[in-house]
């Protein structure tokens, strides 16, 4: 009886439906808590680009006090009627640059809350195996990088995954310049090979040995978003 095709088909269908219902309800119950975790993690990444964040940092309080969220377009104008939490950076990336909704986080100075000290924006790109992303913090001059925080889905551990796991990678971008003096998006460029230092070249960054293809993805991503935010940063200096 257990080898009859009809039995097998009915058995499979019931098994799948029951499993799906169980999983669906688990997800439903936990989704609020999961969303909170994701939101907190995003805030943490944004703050990481401008300061040291550890277990004792009260992320929510600092974020609420210092960060204002905006959505702009590629001309540097505010995108009316769009909330930042509805914008998915990886989805926007599929659109042409001039149709994208571009999130922007303005971070106030601690001393003078009327002054914007840093601008942070998210990026999304393709690594070697899967998606990569980052937050880039730009100083008040509109072109010098304050800090970066990379993330990835499936880069090779010990090689490409170092963009996130190795604490030495992100600081290599500090004080490099995303734009040239006349705000052309030269982008910062991670070189092939490791062990260099470029104190006199504001656009070159020491590479990751064995992870050139991930570095290429990072370079392409930074270039793409340097173009997208070009008009906004240019307008700061008028």
């Amino acid at each position: 009886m257990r080898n009859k095709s009809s039995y097998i088909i009915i058995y499979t269908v019931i098994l799948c439906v029951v499993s799906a219902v169980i999983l669906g309800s688990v997800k439903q119950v936990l989704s609020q808590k999961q969303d909170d975790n994701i939101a907190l993690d995003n805030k943490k990444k944004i703050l990481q680009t401008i300061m040291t964040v550890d277990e004792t940092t009260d992320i929510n309080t600092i974020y609420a006090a210092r960060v204002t969220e905006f959505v702009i377009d590629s001309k540097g104008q505010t995108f009316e009627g769009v909330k930042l939490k509805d914008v998915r950076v990886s989805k926007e990336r599929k659109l042409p640059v001039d149709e994208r909704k571009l999130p922007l986080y303005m971070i106030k100075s601690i001393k003078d809350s009327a002054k914007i000290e840093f601008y942070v924006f998210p990026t999304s790109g393709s690594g070697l195996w899967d998606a990569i992303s980052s937050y880039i913090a730009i100083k008040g001059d509109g072109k010098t990088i304050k800090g970066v925080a990379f993330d990835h889905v499936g880069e090779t551990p010990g090689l490409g995954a170092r963009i996130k796991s190795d604490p030495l990678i992100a600081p290599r971008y500090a004080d490099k310049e995303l734009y040239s003096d006349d705000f052309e998006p030269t982008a910062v460029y991670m070189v092939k090979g490791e062990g260099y230092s470029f104190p006199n070249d504001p656009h070159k960054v020491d590479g990751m040995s064995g992870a050139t293809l991930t570095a290429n993805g990072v370079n392409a991503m930074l270039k793409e978003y340097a173009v997208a935010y070009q008009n906004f940063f240019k307008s700061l200096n008028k």
Partner: protein
Amino acid sequence: MSTETLIKVKKESEPLFSKKNRKLLIDPIDSDNPITVQVLGICSALAVTVQTVPAIVMSVGVIFVCAFSNLLISMLRNTIPPRIRIIVQLVVVSLFVQMVSEVLKAYSYDVYLQLSVFIGLIITNCIIMGRLEAFALANKPWPSFLDGIGNGLGYGAILVAVAFVRELFGMGTMMKGTLLEWHVFESMGLKFQSIGIMAMPAGACIILGLLIWAQRARNGYSEAN
């Protein structure tokens, strides 16, 4: 009345922790260990043993998945069509793995990020499929449940042992990321020099090899038997 039923139950069924059932629980921890004796589940033993805390979380995940999928498969064992039994096992294992993943995502997000890929890979952990196929399909639910816990514990014991050594020599800490975090070498006034290979899977391979050697030497086990 109540004593009567109690006696009746005792007469009919085997006690919950009979000698045979205790053996199911304890054997896989040492003499029939899934990693060091059966050499299953090596892949994740190499991958998630950089630090102790993720190793513990991973072990708890595997114990949970192994125990409950053993239980469920054993309960269904007389209804499962033999021709698609592997697929049925996969569905059941995936169900529990996905549940672990969702719960971690809600309650321990940091660990979830650290382990996300490997949690998914519990589905393909040879220990779990191996126990379903070799034990749960032919045994009653309770012994199957114990067998699942036993094998999960055996897996976890090795995982934590390897992770302990790797964290100690790779990062110089114990229980990093918890309140019990302890910088071993600094607290003894020594300068810590990381042994790079311990932070990489190759380090786990060496530790695991030594562990298998030590255990087999002690138990007098050899492949020929």
